[in-house]
């Protein structure tokens, strides 16, 4: 049971939590939060593998996490903008009431 196991387990659990929330909650914003959690779980993986990986002198893990943090910020901005405009249009932020794509 090395430290790496611990971090990986935490990130797996976090990912599961995020997924569970994202696919069970009603409110779109909470869904977004769940997605953020999953992203962060992935980031934790990157850092952990960088720290305990074979060649940490190449800062790949860290650089990747920096990029993914920036991307996640952009994603949050756009996602929330979408949610707000959807709310304005449908007068609700519940994803299970927004099913106009029903086939």
């Amino acid at each position, binding site marked *: 049971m090395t430290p790496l196991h611990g971090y990986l387990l935490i990130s797996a659990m976090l990912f599961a939590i995020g997924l569970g929330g994202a696919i069970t909650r009603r409110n779109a914003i909470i869904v977004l939060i769940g997605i953020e959690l999953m992203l962060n779980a992935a980031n934790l993986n990157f850092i952990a593998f960088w720290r305990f990986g074979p060649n940490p002198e190449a800062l790949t893990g860290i650089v990747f996490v920096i990029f993914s943090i920036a991307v996640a910020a952009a994603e949050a901005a756009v996602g929330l903008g979408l949610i707000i405009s959807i709310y304005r249009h449908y007068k609700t932020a519940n994803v299970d009431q*927004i099913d*106009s794509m029903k086939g």
Partner: protein
Amino acid sequence: MDWVARNLWLIPVLPLLAAGLSALAKQRHRGFAAGLAIGSMGVSLALSCVAFATAVSHSGTELSRQVVNFRWFELGEGWVKLGWVLDPLTAMMLVMVCFVGLLIFIYSTGYMAHDENFTRFFCFLSLFAAGMLGLIIANSLLLFFICWEIVGLTSYLLIGFWYHKPAAAAAAKKAFITTRIGDLAFLIGIVWLYAQAGTLLFYDNGQGCLEKPALASLATQVTSVGMAVPTAIALLIFCGAVGKSGQLPLHVWLPDAMEGPTPVSALIHAATMVAAGVFLVARVYPLMALGPAGGQVTSTALMVITWIGALTAVFAASIAVAQDDIKRILAYSTVSQLGFMMMGLGVGGVAVGMFHLITHAFFKALLFMGAGSVIHGCNDEQDVRCMGGLRKFMPITFATYAIGMMALSGVPIFFSGFWSKDEILHAAHNWPVTHLPFYLGILGALLTAFYMTRQVAYVFFGNCRLSLGKTTASEQRTVAHAGVSAREHPQVELPAEPHESPGAMVFPLVVLAFFSVVLGFLGTPAWPWMQRFLEGEHAPVQPGMLGNSGVLSVMVTSAVIAFLGIGLGYWLYGRRALESQQKDVLEQWWPNVFTLLRRKYYVDEIYEWAFVGLNAWWARACDWMDRWVWESIVQLLGALVVGLAWVDRVLDEQVVNRGFDEACRSISGGGGLFSRFQNGRVQNYLRALGLGLVVLVLLLIWGCRAS
């Protein structure tokens, strides 16, 4: 390494700065923008003169090509490198572009004086100059392509400068899209070359893609279809040149481009940008000349170039015979001259083509600016049938225009066009492959002389047919498009007497006229200085060359041809005064031929028909498929089911009814089941994703266990 070679980048950067600054300036800061553009161009001209002097002084030595390369950014493992080169080719083009550009800038201050978007115009012009100069000094095909696209963009912007004029907007779009077709192939060629040679630098002391090792390695490779790789790349690159230089079959945009302001036509669509294609071929000539075996026999690429050039020359010249818009005539003549240059490159190598490029740049710019001056003087009238007798009203324009016309149609001895065209014909005559291009060239020269005479006769001789009083169609167009400028424009409201243009417009004409005479003597067979300079040798003066039988025969031939054309033209058009309503002489004789020519061989219509028709045909095909194939299958299935049901009913009411209902129910149930998956709720999809993830990980683990 000389100072000027190291700081060659200044030449394009100065106009770029000017463009940026005048882009920030307000529309009313006219003097600022114009001064900035002209000043920067002047400095660039000075610098390029220094560069030229340096190149001349180093001519023939190993310093004759000085290269500066630098790293741009790191891509993957390697670095993307850019750079600039100073060699005779560059130096000559630099001087030409800067000089003509400067003159045209000065000219535009007069021509665009009444336009409200004066500042924007000069911003675009400077940007164009920057792109063009950068393209000239580029030592990397990538940099070349970047500037190439900048130039294309500015051309688009300037053609559509009067964008409120629908024709202009359409022409701009047409030019942009048509050239894009060529550029796509060009880009593919670049990428392929990069994949093959590993670099896009032309000269990189030994590693460049135009130098021996790379060429040698290229020459050995053969594509899957059996064509040699260098040939394929060269042809792809040549496609770009075809697009830019308006060769067949992509010439359609150039005549329409005349919707732009006349200085633009003079600068971009006569002197410099369209010549960029020729320059491109000249620049990558080693690649073009690289035969399949790398031997000295004329390579496939060069043959293609020659043929396309020759055909374009005749084709466009014949169209120009039947045009009425003064600028369109010149446009088609430009296309045909570009064809001549391509042919010259193909048959005679860099020197021949470039010589004609330089001379042509001068006298064609002269002609366009003369045309602009005529249009300006005749209240924006562009139809030659409605002009006439102008030589009384604008003598200087007439004189200069006549010089340009004679240079273009190749009147012997005194005019540069004669010498350069003669070079091309001579080379074509000595071409080992076949003599057909030579005859095509002769025909082209004849037509050139003819239509130029026709135009001059229409515009300057006879009596004035300007419709005083009532406004012509083109004037209404002008009033419509000029907008505010129309109100500022004193002559537009009531057409006055045609008048000589202001000094700012006449001065460049004179200068250009001078050069279009003098320039020829730099390349006579007696003293072929320019050609030798381009090949990096010294040129001895040998008057005996004139007496050389081959040279002499060709010279005499082309002289005869020129006079023949001029005489024919004069006999047809010049003898008696023309009436504005009267039909064209040729039209009276061969109406069908004439209409064919006037409608430009229906090329536009053909393209229209081809592409639109193709579309329609495809749509019809799809429709047919739908109507017959799928429909029939559906019908078949339906019939099958019905038949079964019928059979069943015939067999046994009870069982079948129940069974059939059961079947239907289960089918619809299945449909409902499937549609339930698509219930538009994001979380179902997300859930499916999660499920898939679980399954995948399980598979992975299982696989690891198994292994």
